[in-house]
């Protein structure tokens, strides 16, 4: 496997209070890999993802994507935000929201583009809802719109910032499986930030654990489970349980340390 996303000695200092959000972060994500980033709240994992997406610049270090330095948002990289109620524009219908991703691309045929967007909505199970407004949909459906919109640009890599954390348990499980299907089908590379240990282990091939503030890499583990995964079987696999136990103690240690150091 070849390196696709490379993060080198990344550090981000908050201008407001001069403290580091994270420091000394280096890791590599291979093409087609599914990596989860996990850490206690305030460890800078979300900030790290924003920097990796080119939405914010690092204080030092650099990121490259496909061998090219990231200096701003790139078209082969799509970001899925936690706050779908904001990221999906409420004044646009579902279809219009998805179409926004491709509307201004050069040399696109209008009709072809609309068909592509419809296809993406079918993909995430929203085929019947193209003319609905976001407020008429449940949270899970709104986040599906955001995923369809990201996919409409035919990205190579998805960066997802706690995309399912605001959803109820059933919705979350459904979307996890949907995401795994899409990842497999479209050969995507995915970096998935979450604070949910089970979610990280269920989804990813590799889990990167960040330490408490300022975030540093505390641990990197490979998840030895194969795909397709199953919400019941995978989560009760002995290897899964063992890994979960180990990461759980790493996480609690980090949280305790964060409390001790915290304000």
């Amino acid at each position, binding site marked *: 496997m070849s390196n696709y996303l490379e993060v080198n000695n990344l550090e981000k200092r908050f201008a407001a209070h001069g403290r580091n959000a994270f420091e000394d972060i280096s890791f590599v994500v291979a093409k087609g890999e599914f990596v989860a980033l996990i850490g206690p709240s305030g460890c800078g994992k979300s900030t790290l993802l924003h920097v990796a997406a080119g939405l914010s610049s690092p204080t030092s270090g650099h990121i490259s994507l496909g061998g090219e330095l990231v200096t701003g948002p790139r078209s082969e990289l799509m970001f899925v935000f936690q706050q779908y109620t904001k990221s999906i524009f409420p004044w646009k219908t579902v279809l219009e929201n998805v179409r926004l991703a491709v509307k201004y691309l050069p040399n696109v045929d209008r009709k072809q583009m609309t068909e592509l967007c419809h296809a993406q909505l079918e993909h995430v199970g929203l085929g019947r809802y193209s003319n609905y407004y976001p*407020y008429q949909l449940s949270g899970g459906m709104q986040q599906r719109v955001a995923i369809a919109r990201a996919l409409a640009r035919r990205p190579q890599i998805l960066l997802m910032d706690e995309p399912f954390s605001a959803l109820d348990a059933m919705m979350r499980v459904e979307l996890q499986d949907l995401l795994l299907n899409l990842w497999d089908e479209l050969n995507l590379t995915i970096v998935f930030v979450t604070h949910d240990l089970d979610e990280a282990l269920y989804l990813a091939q590799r889990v990167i654990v960040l330490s408490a503030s300022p975030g540093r890499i505390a641990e990197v583990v490979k998840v030895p489970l194969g795909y397709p995964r199953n919400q019941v079987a995978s989560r009760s696999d002995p290897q899964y349980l063992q890994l979960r136990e180990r990461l759980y103690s790493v996480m609690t240690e980090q949280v305790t340390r964060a409390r001790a150091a915290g304000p």
Partner: protein
Amino acid sequence: MSDWLTQSRASGLILIVVLLLLWELSALYLVNTPTWPPVTRIFHAWIANVLDGTLPLHLLATLWRQMLGYGLAVVLGILMGLAMGYYRPLYNLFEPLVEAIRPIPGPAYLPILVLFVGIGHEMKVVLVLVASFFPILLNTFSGVRSIDPVQFDTARTLGLNTLQTFRELVIPAASPQILTGMRISLAISLILAVLGEMIVSNDGLGYYTLLAQRTFRVPEMYAGIFTLAMLGYTLNRVFLLVESRLIRWHQESSGRR
């Protein structure tokens, strides 16, 4: 008490009819003075002046200068508000000035305007413009400034340039607040147009009403005031109708009907 009376607007309409009836009866049987004519006499005067074209002409004169000043205020207020809301340096540059000028009541501009633009049609248009401008400006820039950073980040990840970001995000996101400013200014614009006409003019509803009072045609005076009430009411209704068409997504998602 039956529900429809308290739960609908029926009671409000009945109150208006009752008050008009009391007015009529008091003017006929209790207060015998020319300053308090019965409603029916006012209505006769109103019909007569509508039919001979006097009132429609004055109404059009008022509406024209109001709409001209208001329209200019809308264009300038929105353009400047968008720029100030979007570009932080422009906001820092102009906001203190806006805050300093804004508390000046609209009519206070009148003496300055008389000096600079005279007492003609232009004076009234500019008076309306100046007074209507600030609510639109303020609401527009605060609407733009309250757009969530996540929405701007979304626009960036989708590769939108500045112009596209304005079109797809900034203007629609700020539109509920822009429309609030426009509605406030619509009421202000009518007030200032009539005020300007009452100070110095030879047409318009303000002129008509004040002239009627000065020449002791009291029913005509009331007819002018009634016409203004109807005009203000109609303008607001039309505005609400247009607004609900434009930002239905906002009203329905925020639970407003």
